[in-house]
C-alpha cells in the first residue's frame, strides 16, 4: 500500500514546560529519517522533557516504531521523560499488542501530557 501523506515534523519553541514535537502524516521507511533527525537534535536531560504530539499521525510502520523506541531510551538515559500524545486508536492498538504500552506513556492530548509532567 502506498502511504502518500508525507510527513511534517516541527519542534515548537520552548516557552515554559516541556518541548513539543508535532509529527503529522505517514511515518514509514521513507519519512522516518526526518523524525530521527529531529529527535537527534533534541537535547534530553533532567527537566528537559519532550512531548510528541502524534494526533496528526496517519500511519506508523516498523521503522517509525524503532525510532520512537530509540528516542525513549535516549530520554530515559538522560533522566528525561518522553510522552506520546494523541495517538490514533488503531495505531495505539498496534503499540499495545507489541507491548510498547508498558514502556511509553500515552496521553489523549498534548495538553494532558504537559499536565501530567507538571504534577
Amino acid at each position, binding site marked *: 500500500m502506498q502511504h502518500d501523506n508525507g510527513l511534517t515534523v516541527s519542534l515548537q519553541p520552548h516557552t515554559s514546560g516541556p518541548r513539543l514535537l508535532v509529527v503529522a502524516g505517514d511515518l514509514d521507511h521513507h519519512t522516518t529519517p526526518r523524525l530521527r533527525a529531529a529527535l537527534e537534535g533534541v537535547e534530553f536531560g533532567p527537566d528537559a522533557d519532550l512531548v510528541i504530539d502524534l494526533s496528526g499521525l496517519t500511519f506508523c510502520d516498523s521503522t517509525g516504531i524503532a525510532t520512537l523506541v530509540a528516542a525513549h531510551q535516549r530520554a530515559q538515559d538522560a533522566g528525561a521523560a518522553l510522552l506520546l500524545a494523541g495517538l490514533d486508536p488503531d495505531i495505539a492498538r498496534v503499540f499495545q499488542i507489541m*507491548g510498547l504500552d508498558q514502556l511509553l506513556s500515552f496521553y489523549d492530548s498534548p495538553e494532558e501530557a504537559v499536565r501530567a509532567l507538571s504534577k
Partner: protein
Amino acid sequence: MRRKEPEVSTVDEAPGRPMPLASAREARRLAAVRRYAALETASGAAFDRVAALAARIFHAPFATVTIVGDDTVRVIAAHGLPPRRGLVESLCAAAVRYGGPYVVPDTLLDPRAAGDPAVLGEPGIRFFAAALITTPDGEALGSVNVMDVRPREAGDEELACLRDLAGLVMDELEVRLATHRTVEVERELRAGAERLARTLQRTLLPPALPRVPGLCAAAAYHPVSADEVGGDFYDLFPLDGDRWGFFLGDVCGKGADAAALTSLVRYTLRAAAVYDADPHAVLANLDAVLQQEHAGGEAPAPYCTAVFGVLQPDGDGFGVTLATGGHPPALAVRANGVVEPIHPAGGQLIGILRNPHFAQVSARLNAGDALLLYTDGLTEARTPSGSMLDEDGLTAYLAAAGPTSADALLTTVHDLITALGKGVSDDTAILALSVPPATRTPSSGSLGAA
C-alpha cells in the same frame, strides 16, 4: 607463429551477384545489422515518409528503404511500388557492399543489374540511386534507394538530400536500439529480482510441514506483492522425545534486509529450541541474538514479533505452552465453536527493547480443537467500513465459521483475505494446528498415534 591471413579475399566478378569483399568486414557489418535488430523490427510510418520524400526529391516514381542481411534484402519502406515488385535486390546489396553513394544511370549498361528481374521485367527499372544507412562506427546496414523507369543522371543536390534521408533513417534506428536495450535491461533486471524473491521466499518458509502423529497442521503465506519479499515466517519441527516445536512471526521491514533478518530469526529459534525448548527461554535467546546483531550499528535496530510454542502429546490431545513477544494473540477454535485467545499478557517486541518481557501461558488442545497463528497483515487489514479488522473482527469471523480443522481454518482465512481484498496491505502468514475430533466408535483409546 600463425601465418598472417590475407585481409581481402579474391573478388568474384560474376555479374548479377553481390560482390563478396573481405569476409571479416562483411561479418562485422552483419553483426551491426543484427545489433540494430533491423531485420526483425524496423518498419513504420517514419520510414514510409523517408521513402516518399526521396521519390519526391528525385521526381521519381519509386523509392525504398532497404536493409541488407546475410542473404536477404529486406524492404522496410516502399513508395510507389507494387508489393514484392520492383525490388532491385542485386543493386541494393551491391550498394551496401561497395560502400559510398551509388548511382546507376542506366541499369541495362551495368553488369550487376542486368540480370535483375525488376530490370528485365515489370516495372522495368532503368535508373537506380542509393545512399547508405551507416552506423556511427561505419557499418552499412542498408540504403535509401530511388528508382525510375527511364535512364537519367542524379544531381549533386538530389544525392545530398538522399544522404540526409539515409542519416534520418539511421537516427531513427539508433533511437529504436536505445529503447530496445532499455526494455531488455529492464526485463532482465526484473526477471533477476523475481528469481531472487522466489529463492529467498523458499528459504524463509519450510517447503512442507512435517507429519505430527495425532495432529493436523497446515500453513499458508498470502503475499501482497509478488516482487517484494515480506518478513513473515513460520515452522513446525520435532523436539526431543515426542514433543514438537512451532513458531510464527514477523520481522520489521521488507525486501532483502528483512529476508536476511528472517533467516537469522528462523535458525536462531530452531537452534535455541534444541538447547532449551522452554518457550520463554527461546524468545529470550532470540532477543539476545538480535540485540547483538544491532550492537553499535547505524541502521535502524532489527526486531521482530513472534509466537513460539511447544506441543506435548497428552491423552487424546496436546498440551501447549506458548510464549509471545509483541505478537497478536493466537486464537483457539474449540470443538464447540467457541473462539478464545491463547495469549499471555504483556509480551514485548523482540530484539529492540532493554530488559524486554516475554510472557508464557499453558493451554490444552483437546480433540476437535484448532489453533490459529497469524501475522498482523490479517488483523491490521481494513474492513470495507474503513476500520481495522483487529482481533475482535477475526474472532467474530472464526466464530461464525464454527468448529474447524487446520485445513478448514486455512480456507476460512483465505476466504476472509479474499473478501477484504485491497483492505489487506501487508503480507499474512498463517499456521493452523488441529486435533482430529473424537471418533464416536465404542472402541476407546487415544487417536491415531501412529
